[in-house]
Structures are given as structure tokens and as C-alpha cells.
């Protein structure tokens, strides 16, 4: 029950640790010296998609002095790497990993805005371009005791942490139990184990509690579920129920579309707030998947649904395109600039500034669109249509007739159709094919990918993985072809605009000219590579994979 070199206990009530009764067993063997009381604060951080949690890491930003950061039972503690200070980031990982660094930062924050240091170095490859968001803010009163041995040497520190979350607006705070941490001074693990055992002998103490963050996240998830059950507001709730092959095709498609609508909604605040570029990306993917689902399987929805909603989702997609194009260009800017051979990368500085100005303009336009009544109307109307379709009335007790079209049959049929469209275009492709043919194939391949992902839950896993792996390779090639073309056209357009408003000098325009030439060459290379790759996709083996991909109802 008592593990490792650090020990944490939950108390039944905070008063227990303040009384002589709680300390009496320890005092029989050690001297106990009460220490200071402090008010501290911490902000638990992670990315929106939980990259740190997936990597087994927790990250806290400390806002008070003299912290002992409550961790996980068994985690090493104390010593020179022990307590944190205000303004520090503390990263804790599996196997007792613990890193600290100063980081005067506001949250949310991109990793590049965090000062250089061991925590930033460790986080960078994990969080990538996602912002670190505050998951929870906690204020805490901390009481400390020192436990001394016979030489009056401090061998153990004990912290009582009485924490209360500072809940975001509209969200009830989770109750946090008082947490008692028994922390060995480095090299005195045996004494800490002894003190922990003596304290644990007291009543109302529970060993090895869940971490503070676990408690907070569990409470938040429960609140979200409760809210989702009673309202129709956007709440990141549990994953949608898996597809049932026997399910009615209309209900299955409506359920999938509702899931995509939820993705759109949860990414709206981060997109409007420009927290990081991935919110917009994820929103756009959900919109594109919605459009593809309407195109490929919208016929199972009530008549008129596609005609009513497809133009609206096209509008939403187009609303977001200019901003995403700027994001993509800026995200790859350094790599693009590094490829210049004739011009100097510094010559592109005015272009970079121009792009940031354009991005601000586009951000305002996008924000207006995403806050518009047109979008709220679309979301409400779309949910109103889908909800009854996805949750048909429960059976009345009589044997119900099988659905006219089940989900498995629909999935096999639509995957097959999308595949045949790709196969036809791929077969017609050759070295002399015009760029339009490659674009057409790219769009159809994307549709196939989306319909595969939509119905992934109904597919045979091994065949699905093999098919998607090959499809992805083709898509990467076609994507490089398109990226080069988009970049080339963008730079041409930027050059015209910058020349007109006088923000580009000759050196900048020459550098941009070199970029255009490089993008053109890159596009030609990508076209050749894409044509070569397509041959590997449209094979008899893959045709057979597609034919038997979906598990029968």
C-alpha cells in the first residue's frame, strides 16, 4: 500500500492533521516541528486534445510561494528538485520524472511563448503547435510540519494541502479532499515510510489517493455529462456510441453527423479566441466530413435535407479557408524561407509581416462569421433535424421489422461507390494528365478517406488499416501537389498586393519570385510522384479489400 519514496494520504477531515491526536504516534519516535502556513495557487495545464495526459505527464503553473505540489503516490519528492516557487512550471511524469523552470506566462499560451528551459524542451515535441490551456485553477492553504530525527535533522516533511478549485464561470467547483503528503528528505526514505505508517494508523486516512488533477477532471466530466443529459448546449461529453451493423442506416448517419456537429461546436470557442491553429483545423475537418457525408450518404436523410444544409456547410467551409491558408503558410514559413538559394531568407521579412497583418484581418472576419446568427441558426436547425433521426422512438414491445436499409449495407455500398470513383480516375491518370485531373483525383480520394473514417467502426480492422495506409500515401503525394500550387498562387497574389500598397521592396519581390519558381518546380515533381503512387493503390488486392471491408449485419 505504501509505495516508492513519496507518500500521499487523504484525510477524512482537515482538522485531523491539526490535532495532537493525529501526531501522537509520530511523536513517540520523532520530534515534530510545525512550520509555516502558506496560501498557494496552481494552474493545471494541458492541450485541448490532452496530449500531456496521453503522454502520462502533468503540468502545473505555480502562483504562490513555498509549494509542495501534490503528486502521485510513489513519486520521488524532496531534495534539491523538491518544492516549487511562484511563477514556475512543474512537469511530472511517469517513473518519477520531475522538471521545473521559471515561466512568467499567461495561459493559454503556445510553447514558443514559454521561456527556454528544461520543461519547454520536454514539452515542445509533445504539444507541437497546440496551446497549453488551463484545465483547472486551484487555490490552496498549505500547512507544513518538519519531522526531526535524534540529531535534530529534518528527515521528513509533511504537508497538509486544503485546496479549492477556482471554477470557470458557470461551472460548479469540484470538492477536493484534504491531502496529506509525507515527503522524505532525500536519502531518508526509510524514515518517511515509518512516519507514513505511523500517520496511517490514525483513523480516517486513506492511502494512495487519486491525484488532484484526476479528481478535478472526473468532476468536470461528470458535470459535462449531467449538463449534456439535460440541455442541448455544446459540451464535450462521452464518445458517441459505436455503430451497430444492424442499425437503421438513417439513424446511423444522423448519429455520425451529430458527432461531427459536436466537434464543430467544441472547436468554435478556441477558433474564435485564436487560441491555437488546431482549433480551426479540427473545425474545418469536421465541416468537410459533414459535407462528404451529405454528398455520399445524404440520400438516407429525409427529402430536402441535403438541399437545405449542403449550401450552408459549404458557406461555413469557405468562411474558414482564407484563415487556414494563412495559417498553413505561416506554419511552414521558416521551412519555405530556408529553401531559398539565390535570395536571403531575411528578404522575406516584409512578407511575413504582411501575412500577420492579413491574418489579423482574416481573424476578425472569421470571428464575425462564427458569431453570426447564420451559424447559430445553422447549428440549431441541424441539431433539430438530426436528433430525432439519431434517437428513434424506442420499440413498443411488438417485434419490430428490420430497417429497410441497415448501416452495414449502407457503409459497404458507399465505400464501394467512393472507391470506384477513385479507381476510375486513377486508371485514367498518366504523365500527360492535366493538373485538373490530379485535383479531381485528390478530392475523390479525400471523399473515400472520409467515408472510410465515418464507417470505420463497421469495418474489418486489418483490411481497414491496410487500405487507409495506402490511401494516405497517395493523399500525401496529392496534398504536396496541391500545397505547392496553393503556395505559388498565394505568393503571386501577395506580391501583387504588397506592390500595390508599397510594403515590398525589390529584394522582397525577387525573393518571392524565387519562391514562385520553387513552388512551380515542386508542383511538377509532386505531380510525377503522385501519378507513380496512385498505381500502388488501385490494385486487385485493394479492390478485394474494399469488397469485403464491412462486417455484415
Amino acid at each position, binding site marked *: 500500500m505504501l509505495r516508492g519514496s513519496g507518500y500521499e494520504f487523504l484525510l477524512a477531515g482537515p482538522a485531523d492533521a491539526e490535532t495532537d491526536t493525529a501526531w501522537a504516534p509520530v511523536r513517540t519516535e520523532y520530534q515534530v516541528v510545525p512550520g509555516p502556513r502558506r496560501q498557494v495557487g496552481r494552474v493545471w495545464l494541458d492541450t485541448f486534445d490532452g496530449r500531456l495526459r496521453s503522454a502520462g505527464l502533468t503540468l502545473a503553473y505555480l502562483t504562490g510561494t513555498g509549494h509542495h505540489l501534490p503528486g502521485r503516490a510513489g513519486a520521488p519528492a524532496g531534495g534539491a528538485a523538491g518544492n516549487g516557487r511562484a511563477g514556475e512550471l512543474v512537469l511530472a511524469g511517469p517513473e518519477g520524472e520531475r522538471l521545473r523552470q521559471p515561466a512568467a506566462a499567461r495561459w493559454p499560451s503556445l510553447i514558443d511563448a514559454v521561456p527556454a528551459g528544461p520543461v519547454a524542451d520536454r514539452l515542445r515535441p509533445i504539444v507541437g503547435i497546440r496551446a497549453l490551456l488551463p484545465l483547472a485553477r486551484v487555490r490552496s492553504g498549505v500547512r507544513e510540519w518538519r519531522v526531526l530525527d535524534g540529531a535534530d535533522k529534518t528527515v521528513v516533511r509533511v504537508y497538509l494541502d486544503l485546496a479549492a478549485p477556482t471554477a470557470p464561470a458557470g461551472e460548479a467547483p469540484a470538492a477536493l479532499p484534504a491531502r496529506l503528503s509525507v515527503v522524505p528528505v532525500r*536519502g531518508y526514505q526509510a524514515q518517511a515510510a515509518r512516519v507514513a505508517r505511523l500517520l496511517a494508523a490514525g483513523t480516517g486516512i486513506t492511502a494512495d489517493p487519486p491525484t488532484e488533477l484526476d479528481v478535478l477532471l472526473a468532476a468536470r466530466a461528470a458535470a459535462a455529462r449531467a449538463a449534456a443529459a439535460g440541455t442541448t448546449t455544446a459540451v464535450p461529453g462521452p464518445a458517441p456510441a459505436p455503430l451497430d451493423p444492424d442499425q437503421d442506416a438513417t439513424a446511423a448517419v444522423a448519429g455520425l453527423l451529430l458527432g461531427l456537429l459536436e466537434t464543430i461546436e467544441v472547436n468554435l470557442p478556441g477558433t474564435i479566441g485564436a487560441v491555437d491553429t488546431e482549433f480551426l483545423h479540427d473545425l474545418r475537418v469536421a465541416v468537410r466530413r459533414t459535407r462528404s457525408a451529405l454528398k455520399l450518404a445524404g440520400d438516407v436523410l429525409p427529402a430536402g435535407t441535403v438541399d437545405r444544409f449542403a449550401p450552408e456547410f459549404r458557406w461555413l467551409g469557405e468562411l474558414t479557408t482564407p484563415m487556414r491558408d494563412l495559417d498553413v503558410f505561416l506554419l*511552414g514559413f*521558416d521551412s519555405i524561407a530556408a529553401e531559398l538559394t539565390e535570395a536571403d531568407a531575411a528578404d522575406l521579412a516584409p512578407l511575413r509581416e504582411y501575412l500577420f497583418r492579413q491574418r489579423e484581418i482574416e481573424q476578425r472576419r472569421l470571428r464575425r462569421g462564427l458569431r453570426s446568427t447564420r451559424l447559430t441558426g445553422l447549428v440549431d436547425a441541424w441539431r433539430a433535424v438530426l436528433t430525432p433521426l439519431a434517437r428513434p422512438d424506442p420499440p413498443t414491445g411488438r417485434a419490430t421489422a428490420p430497417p429497410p436499409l441497415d448501416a452495414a449495407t449502407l457503409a459497404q455500398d458507399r465505400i464501394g461507390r467512393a472507391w470506384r470513383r477513385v479507381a476510375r480516375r486513377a486508371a485514367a491518370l498518366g504523365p500527360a494528365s492535366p493538373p485538373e485531373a490530379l485535383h479531381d483525383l485528390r478530392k475523390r480520394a479525400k471523399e473515400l478517406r472520409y467515408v472510410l473514417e465515418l464507417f470505420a467502426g463497421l469495418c474489418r480492422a486489418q483490411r481497414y488499416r491496410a487500405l487507409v495506409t495506402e490511401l494516405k500515401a497517395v493523399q500525401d503525394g496529392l496534398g504536396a501537389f496541391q*500545397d505547392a500550387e496553393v503556395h505559388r498562387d498565394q505568393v503571386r497574389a501577395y506580391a501583387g498586393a504588397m506592390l500595390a500598397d508599397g510594403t515590398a521592396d525589390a529584394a522582397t519581390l525577387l525573393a518571392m519570385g524565387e519562391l514562385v519558381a520553387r513552388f512551380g518546380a515542386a508542383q511538377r515533381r509532386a505531380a510525377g510522384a503522385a501519378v507513380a503512387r496512385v498505381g500502388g493503390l488501385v490494385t486487385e488486392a485493394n479492390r478485394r479489400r474494399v469488397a469485403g471491408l464491412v462486417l455484415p449485419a
Partner: protein
Amino acid sequence: MKVVASYNIKGGVGKTCTAVNLAYLASREGRRTLLWDLDPQAAATYLFRVRPRVKGGGGALISGRRPVQDVIKGTDFDGLDLLPADFTYRNMDLQLDGTKRPAQRLGRLLGTLAGEYDLVVLDCPPSVSLVSENVLHAADLLVVPLIPTTLSLRTFDQLTGFIAGFPRRPAVLAFFSMVDRRKLLHRQIVADLPAQRPGICAVHIPAAALVERMAVHRAPVPVYAARSQLARSYEQLWAAVAAAVTAPADPSGPSPVPATGPGPGSARR
């Protein structure tokens, strides 16, 4: 990680007091600090109330049979750890002599702690020996307490002459220790020499009864006499040491949004 050694060929000049107070002040400033008590007399170990014992003795540490990390003890002060002395350190010369590249063995052992500490302070035994040669190779900075006497200055010259031949020479920061202002010679040397001799700083530590009380309180001076002139002198000394070991800050600042992302060909629209 920087390594600072409190060192002098002479004994009884205040090396241990210097090492203990500098290590404490470094940790108080937020640096993760380790003090290695290399002196078998174990005075620094005693001052931090730690048992002067290393499992397996100095031989196990030097040979690598026992990792350095395993014998480190936390002190009563946050951010300050101690690698205790052991009486077997009296044989450390012999133990070092049996290793490959014996003059660099301590430096290699310290290298295993690089990610864990910002600063290591070595409290060295007096004399010129293989141990002290190791210290001179491992240290980024030698802090040399000097009693303001002619003989003490002579040993300082011996020390600087000795390290002059090193391919990687540590920086040297000497200061006057145990200064008795009632003595004319002390007053003259303290007043004149810092300006005349490079490597000797103007900070000096007075001879004070408070220093001797470290062994009574078993704590660094700023802990039990925070407002004393002695504590202020050690703080000034630490400021000089910190300036000598602190590298210039990285001038690069944060990049604008968005600043990083996938390379060419992996754009996701």
C-alpha cells in the same frame, strides 16, 4: 551545471565555512545545489547534521560501484543537498590512483549529476594531492579564502602557478578570510592587494565569533544571524561568485503566433 571549489593549499583558512555558506546562499536564490564534503574531517557534513558515512566508503564511489546519486542526502534547506564525507576519504588519493585518467575521475562522477543540479560546491581538504588535482580539473571556479598574511599570499602564488599549466584552467576568485581589523598587516593587505593582484576580490570575511557559532547552531550564518555583518559579507561573496559562474542569458525571445509547424509537404488544410 557549474562547479565551484572552496580550495586552498593551506588548512584553517575558512574553506568549509565558505563552502557551507555559499552553497546555502545559492540554494536560497533558487539554484539546485549540491555540496560535496571531500574532507575526511567531515566538518561540513557535521554542520548539516548528516551522518558522515557513505555506504561502501569513498572507494565504492570512486570505482563507480555505488552511484553518486545513491548517497546524496537532503539538508534541512530546500534546494540544498549534501554528498557527505566519510573517513575513508583519507585514502581517496590511492583510490583515484587506481582508475583510468585519475586526475579527472571526480569530474566524470560530477558529470552524472549535470541534469539534477545547477551548482555543485566542493569543500576540499587542504594540501596538494591527487584529490586536489581532481578538484582543480573539475571546477569552473576556484574560490580561495586567504588569510591576509605574507605566507598565505605565497601559497596563493603557488596555487596559481600550479594551475597555469592546465589545459582547461578554472577561473580563480580569491578573497580575504578571517580578517582581524585590529592587526595593521591585515588592514594594509586587505586595502591594497585587491587592486594590485588580479583574481583577488574586494569582499572580505571578518574574523568573528559568529563564524565559530556555526558549529553550535549547525547551520549556515545567514540562518542564525541573518542581519549580521558576517551574513552580509557572505552574501557579497556569493554575489561575486554568482557573477563569476553565471553565463550570459539567451537573447532569443518568443516567436510570434503561429511560429512552428509541419514542414513542407505536410500542410493540412
